[in-house]
């Protein structure tokens, strides 16, 4: 008989799906997720009243002036934080990445054990930098340097340097290693081999990730505004407390525009560099 042989992957896939569902269930019950709460009439009317206050968005001249100031401050916090983060992340990524290993050259890309051991402290540093959430750093720095944007900048710089460093190091390792190895094999220094061998291939991915992180930094700076680190977040916090829904709506629209702009910028840079 010509029965089609059964797909040998079918059973494992089924079992994996069941396992995933079985693991998901305790997660749902532990987080006490209760979707029916959304649809209870009293809750719905409270939320409806809250949302109704959002319309129309506030647009009087003095508020727009305030909004403009806060937006600029938010952008400044995000940009300054990212610049500081880059200053820490680049050297760390270069040190943590295996892509520039000289000892890996005659071993088909696997560095010697001692070279790997030397990379561990840098990887550890990057893990420490990014494992504490930026809001915690912000709370800490608000105590240390007082209310205002400085705390936000420092918090973003610390957390984001950890993220950028880790991802950059992985991007360096994921691009075609042959140009770099050829240069190292022709006697070049490591930094020069990076600039001539890794960077041309990694630049577009690095750019796109950096712009995405900048976008995240804009959002994060807003969250940190709630704990007093300046910018749009502080304004949203104030407006929410005063039940000024129209102002909140205007600020949310500003966000939409900012994220949209970041998206366009990223698209533009990628098209230019790929």
């Amino acid at each position, binding site marked *: 008989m010509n029965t089609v042989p059964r797909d040998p992957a079918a059973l494992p896939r089924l079992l994996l799906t069941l396992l995933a569902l079985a693991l998901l269930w305790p997660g749902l019950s532990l987080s006490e997720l209760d979707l029916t709460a959304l649809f209870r009439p009293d809750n719905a009317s409270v939320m409806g009243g809250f949302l109704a206050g959002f319309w129309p968005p506030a647009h009087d001249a003095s508020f727009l002036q305030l909004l403009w100031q806060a937006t600029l401050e938010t952008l400044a916090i995000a940009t300054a934080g990212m610049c500081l983060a880059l200053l820490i992340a680049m050297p760390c990524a270069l040190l943590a990445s295996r892509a520039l290993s*000289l000892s890996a*050259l*005659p071993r*088909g890309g696997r560095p010697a054990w001692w070279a790997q051991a030397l990379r561990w402290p840098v990887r550890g540093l990057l893990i420490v930098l990014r494992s504490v959430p930026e809001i915690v750093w912000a709370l800490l720095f608000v105590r240390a340097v007082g209310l205002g944007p400085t705390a936000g900048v420092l918090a973003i710089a610390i957390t984001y340097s950890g993220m950028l460093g880790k991802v950059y190091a992985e991007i360096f390792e994921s691009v*075609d290693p*042959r*140009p770099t*190895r*050829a*240069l*190292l*094999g*022709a*006697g*070049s*220094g490591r*930094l*020069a*081999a990076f*600039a*001539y*061998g890794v960077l*041309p*291939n990694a*630049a577009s991915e690095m750019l796109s990730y950096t712009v995405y992180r900048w976008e995240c930094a804009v959002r994060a700076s807003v969250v940190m505004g709630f704990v007093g680190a300046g910018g749009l977040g502080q304004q949203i916090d104030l407006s929410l407390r005063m039940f000024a829904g129209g102002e909140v709506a205007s600020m949310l629209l500003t966000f939409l525009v900012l994220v949209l702009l970041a998206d366009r910028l990223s698209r533009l840079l990628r098209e230019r*560099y790929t």
Partner: protein
Amino acid sequence: MSIRLDGVGFVHANGVQTLADIDLQVAAGERLAIIGPSGAGKTTLLHLLATRLRPSQGRLELLGEQPWTLSVRARQRLRARIGLVHQSPPLPPRQRVVTAVSAGRIGYWSTLRALLNLVHPLDSGGVRDELARLDLADKLFERCNQLSGGQLQRVGIARVLYQSPQLILADEPVSAMDPVLAGHTLALLNREAAQRGISLLASVHAVELALEHFPRIVGVRDGRILFDRPAAEVSAAELQALYANAQLQQAPAPAMAPQPLMPRC
């Protein structure tokens, strides 16, 4: 003496002995072609000489130094004096030809100079001269991904010539070129090496190209040197033995022996 190998062997990471008992001496300025069937160990031999691989046995001496007894820094300085032409040139697709060729010299430059050169080419004249030798002067500011395979191979050769090393190792340097261009390029490589007193070792697929352009021929088979003699003394029987293949039973060879040994591209 630019190369001296005594009983050099190489065991691959999976335990296969790719090269065994290689004895080879190359004087400064000597030019030789390495021929042999696919998988004979030609590339491994070149990579050993380029210090891309470390020999498992034997003694290796390059340009008067033993690379694997040197410090890391001294070994990098030695590597800058050895040029390796790759079969498929490892050039980033978006890099410009002028940058790719000038990268040949970054072994000699300070990091600062290398970075400056990346921002603005410091010696586009010198790069253009090397490219002009290979008929590529008009490609100076093109990107590498706009070139054909044969043009890329010539950019790779221009880069190694620009490096101006004391020893050039070439791994199938003309495999992506048509026969006429391949002959022209091999002739050029030999001429430049002879003029500048550079030792040249090239692995070549096409036997008649090797015999035509190189004064000395080394036949490699199964990781061993089968013969090593001047091109004029290589006999048809030796070539038959070099390429004889039990698996691929070919039609009986006609009277002219080198006939079935046409380019195996």
